[in-house]
């Protein structure tokens, strides 16, 4: 996966005069409540329109994913060739696909797997990458060398190859249901993307290691694990988190690509990637089959990326 941020990138933007007047120090957060990076960030985020819009969209998508039946009563898997490729109408807002299934229903039910893949893959990637990254950054030396080289080995691996092998393992085990396949897709994405998260965390950890608070903690006799998890981690998490939200969009796209290549989810599990992949041969005669899932996919990725942007800007310590 590509590496959108490095340790050097902050998201400093010029907020003009208002930055000086309403600087966080002047905010009253209540008597005796300790100020932390996170509460500052939250205060900041709450006031950004970008964050609010993105957050609302994501919340809506999560609700759709959890309760699809609230949004449609049609069965996303009911095929009826008499309706094949019919365009949008009053009965079916998004029209019908090649097999005569209601596109709107499929988009609604597809939210679940699409979101699940994106969120789970990002979470897993961040967890693995952050864990190795902070170890590599803090300990340096041969630990760093080893972990970095292992990461480089995975860099060279073609994503498709890893995905095919892992997915075939699941298939051959004859496990029924969509969840194992989704799990395999998530696993293949995470296995192949963790080096990037590791690199980001590592550079943040290297920078943090030089900070006074770490030296002070060591002088006071704190153990390595305490230093890492209590002091360094909260301060290094920001860039990785931001990578996670931006990468989430890329991961949803990766699942779509796997479906396009024929190795991702399949009947009866439906995801937007599967829908787009099925629709590609019919773009010239029934574009609605492609446009609606592609539109939803775009909007979702947009929302997550905007969220990531807003979070990064809020967490950037350079604004403090």
């Amino acid at each position, binding site marked *: 996966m590509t590496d959108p941020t490095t340790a*050097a990138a902050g998201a400093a933007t010029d907020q003009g005069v208002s930055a000086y007047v309403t600087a966080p120090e002047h905010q009253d957060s209540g008597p005796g409540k300790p100020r932390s990076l996170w509460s500052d960030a939250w205060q900041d985020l709450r006031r950004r329109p970008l964050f609010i819009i993105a957050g609302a969209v994501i919340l809506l998508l999560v609700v759709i994913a959890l309760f699809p039946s609230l949004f449609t009563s049609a069965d996303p898997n009911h095929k009826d060739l008499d309706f094949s490729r019919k365009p949008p109408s009053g009965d079916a807002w998004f029209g019908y696909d090649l097999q005569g299934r209601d596109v709107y229903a499929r988009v609604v039910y597809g939210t679940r797997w699409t979101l699940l893949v994106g969120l789970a893959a990002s979470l897993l990637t961040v967890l693995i990458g952050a864990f190795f990254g902070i170890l590599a950054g803090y300990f340096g030396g041969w630990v760093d060398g080893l972990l970095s080289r*292992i990461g*480089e*080995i995975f860099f060279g691996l073609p994503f498709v190859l890893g995905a095919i092998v892992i997915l*075939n*393992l699941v298939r051959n085990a004859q496990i029924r249901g969509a969840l194992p396949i989704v799990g395999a897709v998530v696993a293949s994405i995470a296995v192949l993307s963790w080096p990037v998260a590791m690199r980001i965390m590592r550079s943040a950890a290297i920078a943090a290691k030089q900070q006074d608070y770490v030296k002070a903690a060591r002088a006071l006799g704190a153990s390595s694990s305490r230093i890492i998890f209590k002091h360094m981690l909260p301060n290094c998490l920001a860039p990785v988190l931001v990578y996670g939200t931006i990468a989430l969009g890329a991961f949803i796209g990766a699942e779509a690509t796997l479906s396009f290549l024929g190795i991702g989810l399949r009947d009866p599990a439906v995801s937007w990637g599967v829908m787009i992949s099925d629709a590609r041969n019919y773009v010239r005669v029934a574009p609605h089959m492609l446009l609606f899932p*592609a539109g939803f996919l775009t909007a979702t990725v947009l929302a997550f990326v905007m969220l990531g942007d807003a979070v990064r800007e809020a967490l950037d310590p350079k604004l403090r």
Partner: protein
Amino acid sequence: MGRYVLRRMLQLIPVFIGATFLIYFLVWAVPGDPFTGMCGERPCPPQFVAAMNDKYSLNDNIVIQYVKYMSALLTGDFGQTYSEQSIGELISLAAPVSLRLAVVAVVIEAVIGITAGILTGLRGRGFLDNLVLVSTLFLIAIPTFVTGFVIQIVLGFQLEILTPTVSSKATWSELIIPGFVLGSLSMAYVSRLTRASIAENRRADYMRTALAKGQPKRRIVGVHLLRNSAIPVITFLGTDIGNLMGGAIVTEGIFGIHGVGRLVFDAIIDKQGAIVTGVVVLLVLVFLLVNLFIDLMYAVLDPRIRYD
């Protein structure tokens, strides 16, 4: 500097071995026998399957297979495909095409991305800034196969402005549209990265000094600002060349480009491990060398960075 380079080159070796073994193992782990499907709707004669498996050492255990392959590789022999074509020849035909495509993509994404990033980084919030932001977000959000497909169908078939496919010669000019499609996602990152980097460095002390000294804007931006903001951007561009070379399967398929992405994908399905590993060897080399070059460029761009 010399010792650093030497150390990095030495570290290439274990990474190389690790990566190639992993690939070889993964292709070996893809289920199925590559020869049983070759005879159409009839079962292949067992003699045929046995002879082929023997010829390509597929009956040996994985470690022996790997060792055999690597020892041949070190003498420059990439092996043969199942149709007895030289893999070295195949790769030597496909790799330059993929490299050209990746270079075109990187150049396009660098030019457009950096320009957009500079303009918005300098200006700060504003209409242009938001426009660039939103359009780059769109490019990140839409998967390449959708953009590629739509461009090919709309511009190629319906409106017939462009030739929808690339010929086997794959000249630079033919690769511009595929390069654009391939680089569209990265273009968005580059512009955001540049923007962030510039916006951050814009208020550094040395910038204020230069301004105070009365230097012309062009010099300030061109010499001081850009040079210091470049590091994250070129890091990303460097890794992208490797990524794009290996990851262009979808774009290559849509535009009919005979590059390594397609070669690798077909080889994975056909279980021709030698082809996959051969290509990955190339890609790993490209990737590691480019990374090394980028790291060395850091020292050039930012004199505060030193290697011992």
